[in-house]
């Protein structure tokens, strides 16, 4: 009986560790970039580099050039869509935000970040 209990506990510990590691690994990485650095990294014709951008969260800093209902345009080139509405942000503000890079929009010639949230300075 003790063996079974020990086995169950061991299994629970191992599975919890694997689960935590898996999710920490997914949550943790973020690359800090300016708008110009993001554009430069994307412009380098290298698939592994591009997937590196989208696999990590991007911590972007730049100046707000347009404010919309649930999105901001940073440095005229980066379209950042927010999870929730935006408050207390105006054109000209310098901000830092965390988002997920999804690619380049050829229609509007903008780089897109999804699920953004503002990070306190």
């Amino acid at each position: 009986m003790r063996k079974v209990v020990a086995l169950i506990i061991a299994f629970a510990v191992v599975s919890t560790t694997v689960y935590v590691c898996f999710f920490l690994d997914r949550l943790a990485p973020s690359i800090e970039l300016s708008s110009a650095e993001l554009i430069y990294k994307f412009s380098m014709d290298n698939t592994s580099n591009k997937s590196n951008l989208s696999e990590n969260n991007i911590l972007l800093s730049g100046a707000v050039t347009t404010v919309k209902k649930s999105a901001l345009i940073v440095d005229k080139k980066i379209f950042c869509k927010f999870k929730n509405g935006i408050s207390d942000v105006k054109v000209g503000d310098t901000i830092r935000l965390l988002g997920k890079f999804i690619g380049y929009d050829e229609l509007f010639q903008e780089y897109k970040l999804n699920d953004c949230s503002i990070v306190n300075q």
Partner: protein
Amino acid sequence: MKQFIPFLLIVIGFSVPLNLQAQQQYLTRNGIITFDSKLNSFVPVKAENSSVSAILNVDGGEIAVLALVKGFSFKNSLMEEHFNESYAESDIHPKTTFTGKISNFDIQDSKTCLFSGVLSFHGVEKQLNEIPLIVEIKNNRIGINGEFQLVVSDFDIKVPRIVRSKIPEKIYVSINLDLEKLNN
């Protein structure tokens, strides 16, 4: 020089209305495209992209829609990863587009119009014919809604035999655009 003046006037006369016409565009960056297998499975194959870009030229009814493949979000993050890596191969084919013309489009009238054009996904172009779209004209806004069906095997998507039974053959795609007038 005097010989050229009438010629110049004609050129300017033609180009001014053309420019005005070119300004009659409506656009959005927050369009929504969802795809859904509509099958009652344990883990539904359903995803939504709510950052779809679209531009509509009012005069000719031409429309261009672009969705970044990585913008499709699934409830199940593992399914999203598989979709991007194995099926849509979004690093190689990062976008899906939808370009064509809405026939019998009229800026004065809300009605059902027909879209014909080309849908491109996973590097494959598929002709779409007469897809009904509900076009709703509001104050300086145009709403476009519609749904159509696609066959997964048309898009050169390699499905491993082991999961073939879990991947639906048909997918329902719905599109929802709220376009606003381009201010110049």
